[in-house]
């Protein structure tokens, strides 16, 4: 289905999430489902939590215990295929990559969107970070109701 539509199946998505109890701290969710020659996520991780190996076509493997959810891999991935996820009380908190204008503003409400491009919920913009190292890929921290943990993937301006 991914081959035909570009949308990962719920099973594929869930397979990239650690167990909910491991999400008490933010963890990387790496949605790289194909063998592509690429390894910046692995070489960028300061905690060596992402393993690809000598054959850079291998899909990245996350060591959940070493991952601190810092988000460096999120803005390093050329495919923008990584985000971090965390569960805090009744909220799911994500750090997502964003490369459009206008940038979201902290404390604003944007639309929460699923992998099919459909608006599914409100998303609260918590933080917006852009450093030189991120090279114009903004890191946006977003919170949504935790029931959207496996559905939410990005935000969209309410005006669009």
């Amino acid at each position, binding site marked *: 289905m991914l081959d*035909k539509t*570009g949308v990962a199946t719920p099973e594929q998505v869930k397979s990239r999430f650690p167990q909910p109890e491991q999400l008490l701290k933010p963890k990387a969710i790496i949605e790289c489902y194909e063998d592509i020659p690429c390894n*910046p996520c692995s070489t960028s991780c300061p905690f060596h939590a992402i393993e690809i190996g000598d054959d850079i076509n291998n899909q990245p493997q996350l060591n959940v215990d070493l991952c601190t959810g810092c988000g460096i891999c999120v803005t390093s991935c050329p*495919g923008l295929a990584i985000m971090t996820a965390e569960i805090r009380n009744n909220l799911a908190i994500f750090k997502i990559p964003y490369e459009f204008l206008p940038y979201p503003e902290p404390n604003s409400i944007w639309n929460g969107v699923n992998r*099919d491009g459909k608006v599914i919920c409100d998303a609260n913009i918590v933080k917006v970070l852009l450093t030189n190292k991120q090279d114009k890929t903004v890191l946006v921290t977003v919170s949504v109701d935790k029931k959207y943990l496996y559905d939410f993937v990005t935000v969209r301006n309410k005006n669009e």
Partner: protein
Amino acid sequence: MTNKELIIVGGGPAGLAAAYTAAKTGCHVLLIDRNPQMGGQLIKQTHKFFGSEKQFAKTRGLNIAKKLISDVETCSDRIEIICDATVVGLYADQVVNVLHNEKYYKYHFDALIIATGAGEKMLAFENNDLPGIYGAGAVQTLMNLYGVLPGQNIVMVGSGNIGLIVSYQLIQAGVHVKALLEAAPKIGGYKVHASKLRRLGVDILTQTTIQRAIGNGCVNQIETIELDDSWKPIKGTEKLIDVDAVCIAVGLSPLYQLLAMGGAELKYVPELGGMVPIVDGLHQTTINNIFVAGDVAGVEEASSAIVEGYLSGLAAAAKIGYQQPDYQKSIADYQQQLKNLRSGPFGAKIRAGLKKVEAKTNA
């Protein structure tokens, strides 16, 4: 006539990389490009590149161009650059003819690297010549080089990496991408690119193609049609989409014309994009001392073009007497990098194509 040790035709990623490794051996290089600036198609690539650190992974294409150009500038005492210069002739006695500022200049070379890249393919459909119907490169040129929107409501045709990436770039520029059409049953490029588009709300319509364009003086509508599993149009599935631009991203074809003129043996290899030269393991063509690098030798990613450039620069310089002690080690490293880039499932087509162009004996 002026003699040059190594002439490199094309200042894109392959040509720049070749100039650098050749110059580092002490060889004198003349690097020629027909554009006002070096960098080839890289200067329009706003996305971060894949590959590994050796191929500048995670760096935006336009910044890779800057890095390659600044590497070349560190060897400015041995690399001469001429821009706005088109190599219009390649003759049997190791001579090239260069058109620059409306004058012709002839140079004799000891070795030559052709790194002319590839050009856009076209798709046959009714009224495909209407203004507003562009190749993907044209859309990137207008948007990213000149800051001009190619349209405001566009349909993309082709789901290879170029179609997927340019669709994303169009959205970044503020253009509404109404749909992406793909005639095949599957998306051709990396799924991560496709996923980015789907979450932006772009419909990816597989087994769908463009049947005709409609407009007077400029396209304002297209008619799409669905294809069955034998790629035949299914009557009754025609749909109209209002557009003011159409982007055709159906692949690139090597710009082999100088090689044909020079008499290099060529072969038609669909897996590599079209007519490509027969080459040995060091990228030398069937003509002594004429090498190739980049898309002209087979359409791949820019990361392969850069490594092929590094390799052919060293090989060409060695052929004319400039060889560093670590030559064999460097060549082996570049060949291994190319192998790694091509070893995954996306490399299968390239590997099959490259088998067809191996010269009978290795240099």
